[in-house]
């Protein structure tokens, strides 16, 4: 169905080829997962399928891309609309009309589909994606998961045989992601649509994939069975890492497969030493650090309103120095509003927030920066200068810090970065690191991050966790609002669950997360509490080995 024949792609003037001699074939009806670190050309590979690369992006493409026998060289994207449907990263930016029904019909109108057929197809698509109750709704009133399903429906009505999706679940909370995946699987199973999906959150998709296309940082692409690809992939979901650690074969891709493999005594594993060992290890995980009792942030009766909507209802929260706290909950449950109010950046309708004894809402902007530093969801909103160095100098000036403070932070968080680069040219992870450095320049008492893992691959996420743990060890209180359950498990000492603006749960991460079916990380689902992360398992095993030798 999709054939890449020795495809090379690069931009004129750039020394690096984005795609390098790609040869691959995806047969009809398969779900192929495109995996790889951020910024290696996953989106380029997807764009090449419907000819958007290079027809609308520019650049030079050599070789041949065939979709359903049509060469993208001769067919620009608009002529392939009935063959390939492409859904972008941010569905709301791709909507052309105002309501769900019109959006579903838009593509067909362009293709001059007869009106009677249009009616039928709109109804079928509404049912297929489970969005019939949304048909008259305005597009901007939909939640993220609904928008994603409408965007899929909008390209599906044209009757394409290939669907190309770029990060369909990255921005979604676990529940909404499941809705989208369920809809997608129904298309693959019932209609035999060929799907090409790029996704950072491999743990959500890999178990359903028929094939994994791994894009390497040199621009080559390898196509393999999921289990084979995962055995060596640099990006892998926790369940796969657990399987690798335990030496399970075949490698489990789903929680269910891993659970069946766990519990059994592993055979002697040559690669990991001569000692047979049990998963989970007999020694439990190290008890989480007890944070110092020194409370630095006190929120009392906090209420945040946006017009008639109450985003946060009477929240009481205390944060201690050196503590990492995850605020979690569905999309739209008030996580962001709580963070903005804690940072003093939006005035609460009622209640008080004191940081280190000072009322933060009445503090002057500069003083406030020294109390709380917030990294917003769209971190790049904070960047407006031409180079990284300029941004750093500006941050030093804004924070009245000694020159070079911010640059030193950037080096610490990101490692060596070319400071003459334009901030917009940095990867999502690097932008986040830069903004974090800008906000840390003022040495705030509490650091808050809103949804920081959007668009980050596993390596960038791990780096972020290390940095945030270091910050906590330095005595900052760290608060992260996220629906990324794996991040919560790796990072947080304490988890707070928000639902409909109310604080529903507040306690040690293990207790909050492990009992919840949607919030439990994969390792907890496989091994049961108190296990949360692969790192815990590996550490416990090392201790076991030391004990065994000693």
């Amino acid at each position, binding site marked *: 169905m999709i054939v890449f024949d020795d495809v090379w792609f690069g931009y004129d003037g750039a020394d690096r080829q984005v795609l390098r001699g790609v040869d691959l074939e995806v047969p009809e009806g398969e779900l192929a997962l495109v995996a790889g670190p951020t910024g290696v050309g996953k989106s380029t590979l997807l764009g090449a399928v*419907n000819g*958007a690369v290079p027809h*609308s992006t520019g650049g030079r493409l050599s070789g041949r891309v065939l979709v359903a026998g049509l060469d993208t060289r001769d067919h620009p*994207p*608009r*002529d*392939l*609309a*009935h063959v390939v*449907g*492409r859904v*972008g990263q941010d569905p709301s*930016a*791709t909507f*052309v*009309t*105002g309501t769900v*029904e019109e959006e579903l019909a*838009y*593509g*067909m*109108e*362009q*293709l*001059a*589909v007869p*009106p*009677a057929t249009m*009616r039928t197809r*709109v109804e079928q698509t509404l049912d297929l994606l489970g969005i019939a*109750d*949304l048909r*008259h*709704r*305005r597009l*901007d009133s939909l939640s993220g998961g609904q928008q994603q399903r409408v965007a899929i429906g909008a*390209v599906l009505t*044209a009757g394409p045989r290939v669907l190309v999706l770029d990060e369909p679940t990255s921005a979604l909370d676990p529940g909404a992601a499941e809705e989208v995946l369920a809809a997608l699987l129904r298309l693959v199973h019932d209609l035999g649509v060929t799907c090409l999906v790029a996704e950072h959150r491999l743990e959500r998709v890999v178990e359903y994939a028929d094939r994994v296309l791994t894009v390497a940082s040199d621009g080559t692409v390898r196509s393999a069975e999921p289990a084979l690809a995962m055995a060596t992939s640099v990006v892998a979901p926790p369940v796969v890492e657990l399987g690798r650690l335990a030496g399970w074969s075949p490698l489990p891709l789903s929680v269910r497969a891993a659970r069946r493999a766990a519990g059994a005594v592993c055979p002697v594993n040559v690669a990991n030493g001569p000692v047979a060992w049990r998963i989970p290890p007999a020694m439990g995980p190290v008890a989480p650090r007890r944070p110092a009792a020194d409370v630095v942030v006190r929120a009392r009766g906090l209420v945040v309103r946006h017009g008639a909507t109450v985003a946060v209802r009477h929240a009481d929260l205390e944060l201690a120095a050196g503590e990492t706290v995850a605020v979690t909950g569905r999309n739209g449950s008030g996580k962001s509003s709580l963070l*903005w109010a804690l940072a003093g950046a*939006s005035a609460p309708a009622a209640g008080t927030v004191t940081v280190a004894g000072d009322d933060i809402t009445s503090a002057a*902007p*500069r003083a*406030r*920066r020294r109390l709380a530093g*917030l990294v*917003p969801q*769209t971190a*790049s*909103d*904070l*960047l*407006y200068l031409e180079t990284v160095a300029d941004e750093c100098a500006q*941050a030093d*000036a*804004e*924070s009245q810090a000694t020159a070079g403070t911010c640059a030193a932070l950037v080096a610490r968080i990101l490692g060596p970065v070319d400071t003459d680069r334009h901030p*917009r040219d940095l990867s999502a992870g690097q932008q986040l690191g830069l903004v974090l450095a*800008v*906000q840390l320049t*003022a040495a705030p008492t509490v650091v808050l991050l809103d949804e920081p893992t959007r668009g980050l691959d596993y390596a960038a996420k791990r780096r972020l966790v290390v940095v945030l743990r270091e910050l906590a060890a330095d005595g900052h209180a760290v608060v992260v609002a996220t629906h990324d359950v794996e991040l919560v498990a790796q990072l947080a000492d304490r988890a707070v669950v928000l639902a409909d603006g109310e604080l529903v749960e507040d306690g040690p991460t293990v207790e909050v997360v492990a009992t919840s079916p949607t919030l439990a990380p994969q390792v907890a689902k496989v091994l049961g509490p108190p296990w949360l992360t692969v790192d815990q398992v590996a550490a416990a095993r090392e201790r076991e080995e030391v004990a065994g030798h000693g």
Partner: protein
Amino acid sequence: MTGRAPLSQLPVLLSPLLPRSLHPLAWWVWALALAVAAAQTTNPLLLLALVLVACVVVVARRTDQTYARAFGWYLVAGAVVIVIRVLFRVLFGGGDAASPGDPVLMSLPALDLPWAGGWTLLGDLTGSALLAATIDGLRLAAMLVCVGAANSLADPRRLLKSVPPALHEVGAATVVAVTVLPQLAESVVRVRGARRLRGGAGSRRDRLRSVVVPVLEDAVERSLALAASMDSRGYGRRAAVPEGSRLLVGGLLIGGLMGLLVGVYALLDATTPYWLGLPVLLGGVAAAIVGLAVAGQRVRRTRYRPDRWLAPELFTVLCGVALACCFVATANAEPLVANPVLSPPSWPTLSMLPCLGLAAALLPAVATPEVQRAREPVPA
């Protein structure tokens, strides 16, 4: 390919009074007729009644889309127009000699500006001058409310969808602009919030830049995403057009435009010969229409559930036109009703004719199909 499906498949639309949205053009004609009527009179009672009619119809038949909720803002804007009109009168209207029997309400110090063409600032404010300014503001406000009513009653996007196929590109661009504006506003709010997080330091130029740069970058990225999405969904596909037809369309459109220009010029300039006036103008219009029709055949699109023009649409238009006719007739036949004497101020009177018109204009509030409301979302 026309947008007509076999009638057996659309039994619902055959019953014109079942709940549905009226053709947007019908509401716009109705509302513009109201605005024309408002321009005919300075009778405050009639103007207020007109605004009331617009309000009642809007409340009864507006949709639940975003722009429909903006009607309240049009009322506010109308009030602001009245206030501004009165303030202007107070500020710039000085120096008018007060007629006998016209009480001076407020005596303000007059400020002569001989260098500015003999203007006088402030000065005596008479009751009749204040009244005239208020009524003038009221008339402007009434027209504004009429436009607001049209906006609230008819989806402007649906109106754009009804443009002839040849103007489809223009329509699409406008639709996108309408969609993008609220997104731009949202992006400004977001970036300003982010700006506060950095402490808001720096010069005014820096502050402006720190908002404008991210917002523009955001807008450009969104536009590119939207363009790519439209492209990959088939926007801009064209049927194969023979060279001759393309030349014909170009010639007809350019010829038509030139005909329009020459014709209008000749009509307005008395010295040009008669044959250069109306005949050329009509010829230009005809050429432009034929050009648009031929160009429209190049666009291969269909319409999903096109708005249909049925009896209630015609009725609504007639109601609006009836009101405009009644007000025009009143202005001619009963000048004292349409334009009451202001100096000295007299209580405005009413007569049968304009009231009949108002009653007619009110009919669409009940005699048109109800609006189909979006169902409440099923709670997840």
